[in-house]
């Protein structure tokens, strides 16, 4: 056994949450005589200020060098007690947390004796682990005050400007020859009338003027190394030139791809069946009545939810189950544009909106109201019985049932059928290979937490925003772009980041570089290095998450996670079965 330690054990009542089922006094009593334990006490609420102060005083008075808190889940209070340890000048990685509430009292409410016994085992294990702790320090990394923004749609452009305004140097990389993304092709955009091209032109003017922004078009990211705060990125420029950039963070705003219907899906490929984008452009380009293929347009049928909100079926094996968010708004807004055109030309255009549910949420609702009261007819369709588009004797026809007429089937002769196609994740093989941002099951880039960490990814220092992360309207895209700006600014303006030291560690003597760990690591944190003659694995500290898939695959037990070392785990198991062995 290692050298003797001075450990304090504190067992919590949690005001009854624990003590109603676990006899906490008995637990504290059971470990009091452990050779490494100096103090063993209980508290009604260990997290209370008074209890914390008492513990701090005891740590200092008794010169404790280890701490075991047996209370609630570490998710709730680990940082509380780490902070407490710090204030007591005890290394925060020498405090061990035992989850006596979620893992014991709450799950054994029917067996108090058993719960108490298990509590004792758990605390013993905690002590055993604590005995083997060593002081650790956070890994501090200096960050570079430069950002790479990938994708110059509206999201990327907006993000670039705000990052540059913070005083950061910004490299904005766009794959196409022109910046602006889809906003260039959507005509007048809702809810308040603005030409997408104007929006883009205004942003571009600011970008061109900004001394902190370097814009590269027809450029693509082809390589990345380094880590949060200090990435090296290589970019391919037109004419086989390339560029090396050193940046502290990366913001990915590569946008979406409109859904392309299957042949025959809602009449796709038939003349007169067009996506909303094309119809918007027709509207933007006309200055009189609408004409399609030389024929005046009098009747238009809009079909909503095309390629969104699908369910799995024989014909649709990989459904897009999500709602594309923008299309109800964009289509009802288009209805109001048509109303305006009608007023201007005096030529009525009958509009039939075949929708599933109108999702003009929040402040967008008045658009629906306006479309409806302006004379657009809304017909609801059921996914089990979608509208059928066909061409009969040269006449484009939509057949649909009207729920408001007890399901009566109608036949609408249309000059145009406009499909409100949803958003799909972009094909981006090269970039995905380089950045390795995890994707959600829908195929869009995945954030860490939809509610609480919406623009951060599992790759530290790489942020996502706009429609690259999931379907959004323009306003929502910009909001998320600015959220990414705030997170990037928060990271880079401080000048450094502190990372958890609970990460993988390679024993150079045992390692023979078989490469198993490299294959197992999802974060690309393993590198091969040479130590003298020998090739061994090396952990890039800033990229390792301490997740540990490398540990079990190593055939030589050469890699371990600090804080969860093999000797600690073995000691915990031994300690927790001590009582059994004694019998």
């Amino acid at each position, binding site marked *: 056994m290692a050298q003797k330690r001075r450990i304090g054990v504190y067992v919590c009542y949690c005001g009854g949450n624990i003590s109603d089922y676990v006899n906490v006094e008995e637990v504290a009593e059971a470990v009091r005589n452990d050779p490494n334990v100096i103090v063993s006490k209980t508290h009604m609420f260990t997290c209370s200020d008074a209890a914390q102060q008492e513990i701090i005083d005891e740590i200092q008075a008794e010169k404790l060098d280890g701490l075991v808190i047996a209370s609630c889940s570490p998710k709730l209070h680990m940082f509380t007690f780490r902070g407490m340890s710090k204030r007591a000048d005890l290394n925060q990685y020498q405090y061990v947390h035992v989850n006596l509430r979620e893992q014991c009292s709450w799950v054994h409410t029917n067996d108090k004796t058993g719960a108490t016994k298990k509590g004792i085992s758990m605390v013993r294990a905690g002590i055993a682990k604590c005995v083997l702790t060593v002081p650790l320090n956070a890994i501090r990394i200096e960050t570079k005050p430069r950002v790479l923004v990938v994708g110059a749609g509206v999201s990327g452009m907006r993000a670039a400007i705000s990052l540059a305004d913070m005083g950061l140097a910004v490299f904005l990389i766009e794959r196409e020859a022109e910046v602006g993304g889809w906003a260039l092709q959507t005509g007048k955009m809702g809810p308040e009338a603005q030409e997408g091209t104007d929006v883009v032109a205004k942003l571009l003017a600011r970008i061109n003027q900004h001394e902190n922004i370097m814009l590269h078009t027809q450029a693509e990211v082809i390589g990345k190394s380094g880590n949060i705060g200090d990435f090296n990125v290589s970019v391919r420029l037109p004419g086989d030139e390339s560029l090396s950039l050193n940046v502290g963070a990366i913001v990915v705003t590569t946008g979406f791809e409109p859904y392309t219907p299957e042949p025959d899906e809602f009449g796709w490929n038939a003349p007169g069946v067009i996506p909303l984008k094309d119809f918007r452009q027709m509207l933007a380009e006309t200055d009189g009545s609408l004409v399609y293929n030389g024929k005046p347009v*009098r009747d238009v049928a809009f079909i909503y939810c095309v390629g969104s909100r699908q369910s799995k079926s024989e014909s649709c094996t990989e459904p897009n189950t999500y709602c594309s968010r923008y299309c109800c708004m964009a289509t009802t807004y288009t209805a109001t544009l048509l109303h305006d055109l009608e007023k201007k030309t005096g030529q009525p255009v*009958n509009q039939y909106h075949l929708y599933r549910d109108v999702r003009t949420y929040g402040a967008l609702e008045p658009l629906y109201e306006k479309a409806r009261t302006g004379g657009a007819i809304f*017909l609801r369709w059921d996914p089990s019985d979608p509208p059928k588009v066909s061409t009969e004797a040269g006449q484009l026809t939509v057949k649909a049932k009207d729920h*408001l007429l007890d399901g009566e*089937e*109608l*036949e609408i002769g249309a000059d145009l059928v406009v499909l409100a196609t949803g958003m799909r994740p972009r094909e981006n093989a090269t970039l995905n290979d380089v950045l390795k941002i995890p994707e959600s099951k829908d195929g869009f880039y995945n954030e860490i937490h939809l509610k609480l960490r919406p623009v951060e990814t599992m790759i530290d220092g790489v942020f996502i925003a706009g429609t690259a992360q999931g379907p959004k309207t323009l306003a929502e895209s910009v909001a998320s772009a600015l959220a990414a700006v705030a997170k990037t600014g928060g990271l880079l303006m401080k000048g450094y980041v502190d990372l958890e030291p609970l990460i993988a560690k390679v024993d150079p003597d045992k390692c023979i570089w078989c490469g198993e760990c490299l294959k197992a690591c999802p974060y690309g944190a393993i590198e091969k290095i040479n130590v003298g003659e020998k090739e061994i694995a090396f952990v890039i500290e800033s990229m390792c998450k301490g997740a540990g898939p490398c540990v079990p695959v190593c055939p030589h037990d050469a890699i371990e996670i600090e804080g969860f070392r093999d000797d600690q785990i073995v000691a915990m198991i031994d300690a927790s079965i001590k009582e059994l062995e004694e019998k």
Partner: protein
Amino acid sequence: MPKVSSKLAAAVKCSEEFNADACMHCGTCTAVCPMGYEILPRKLFRYVQVGLEDKVKENISSIYSCLLCGMCSENCPAEVNIPENIRFLRKYINENEFNLS
């Protein structure tokens, strides 16, 4: 299958007099209408809005059966002026079917 007619839909749209677009199809009007006809007035308006001219013609007698009593519009949560709309339909039929003006 009833066909949607551009002509009726456009006539309705161009008319200042017909305005049932605010209708949310709650059915209150039909429930309170003294006539007790299933079609009067909500379903009739839907026929008109969608542009089902044949259906409208099939139901001419219902259109002239309305009392213009206003019980419906008094209770309509969307404030649709129902009797005025019925009058518009009569006018449309008088002019297009009966050659009357």
